């Protein structure tokens, strides 16, 4: 297994502050988004769901695909699950 195979989530764009889990990551398990980067998951991150790569303050934009997909409704810590409970998108 090379280092690349150990990465368990995908950072789609360099500007993103969330990554997508490519496997289920258990609470306390290591989040490994990029080579040489590892931090604990604060809760279970189901496969396909987003994990915060950095702290995202309340009201700050959440970025995926290098674009804003919504805003944090509470302070989000690195390693936390990011979903509808702490992110709100704009009305179209």
């Amino acid at each position: 297994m090379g280092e690349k195979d150990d990465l368990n989530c995908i950072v789609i764009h360099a500007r993103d502050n969330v990554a997508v889990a490519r496997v289920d990551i258990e609470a306390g398990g290591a989040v490994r988004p990029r080579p040489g980067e590892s931090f604990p998951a604060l809760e279970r991150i189901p496969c396909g769901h987003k994990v915060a790569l950095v702290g995202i303050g309340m009201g700050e934009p959440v970025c995926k695909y290098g674009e804003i997909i919504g805003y944090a409704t509470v302070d989000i810590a690195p390693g936390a699950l990011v979903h509808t409970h702490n992110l709100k998108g704009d009305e179209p």
Partner: protein
Amino acid sequence: MKTLPRTFMGYVRPDGSVGVRNHVAIIPTVACVNGVARMVEREVGGAVAIIHGHGCGRAVEIGMHQGALAGIGANPNVAGAVVIGLGCETIDADWVASRIAEKGKPVEVYRVQEHGGSLKTARKAADAARAMVGDLSLLERVECGIDSLVLGLECGGSDAFSGVSANPAVGLVVDWVVDAGGSAILTESTEMIGTAHILARRAHDGETARQVEKVVDDAWRRAQDILGPLAPFVVAPGNMDGGISSISEKSLGCICKAGSRSIQGVYGYGTRPERTGLVIMDGPGYDMESMAGLASAGCQVILFTTGRGTPAGFPVVPVVKVASTSRLFAAMEDDMDVNAGTVLDGEPMEVVAGRIAARMLEIAGGQPSKAETNGMGGIVCLYAVTPSF
């Protein structure tokens, strides 16, 4: 992808466009004569019937449907066409034929009410189609550049991974083709809702930006008109469970299959783009209607990403299925052409994109896609927004 050939073997048409198939299309101008078109298709090897449910009983869409049938006949994959009319329908068979003939292709027209009923018309049409297949089978494939490609982009039966694996990988293929001078058409306006400002920013000029915003705003308004307060839930469907948190996120996952280049123009449903490069075609999210619009707009190949899996194809355009997960690829192997799910298994996006591009070139060069092998051409569904009368 850097090491891939930038050519494939295609058929050069009299208007300079390049086909990846050499079909003789049998085009009924109204559904009432679908059976006649089917008879011709059964009798003549190499003939493909464009079976559809339209041609009469509409006011608003009749021009659009007439244009779409003509556009399918004018598609570079069609070498010649036999148009079969009834005689009293709203769509004008001669107009459809003339638009196909403009491209320098052989076209014949038969009307059931003028040629002695269904059986006699089918016999005459079959004779014409047989002669056409004979003549056109002499055409040979020659080496053509990928700059002659117009890729249709489609996603259907999406899952939460479509926007992570299959769509971004297809986006790299689109960038590769567009950078070489080719074209791609992004459609499904409903799946752009929430990203109007992002797409508008990528428009090559102010007028295109305004058109992009209008197409997406109209799609949102239509969704609200039809679905009312349910609109946001239906637009961002069950894939919330899969980890999608907002409409913008879902739509970004859809539009990333169009890569990252600037948007050169916005066109109506089924309209052949005047500009090359990446363009947007206004159209519905329903796969079947969307693919008919792409075929009419002149796409020779449709790259179709799917997460839950669909076997759907199109009669005269090879549809290349790109699976978003390895699980789907294994579960529906007979219907899937390329597995992009390996992105989730750790394979680099560029490598996956290279495999999609390579398979696409093989299929453009004549190898059948899975949907073609399986005979999944199906019925041509055309977009409509008003009821028939």
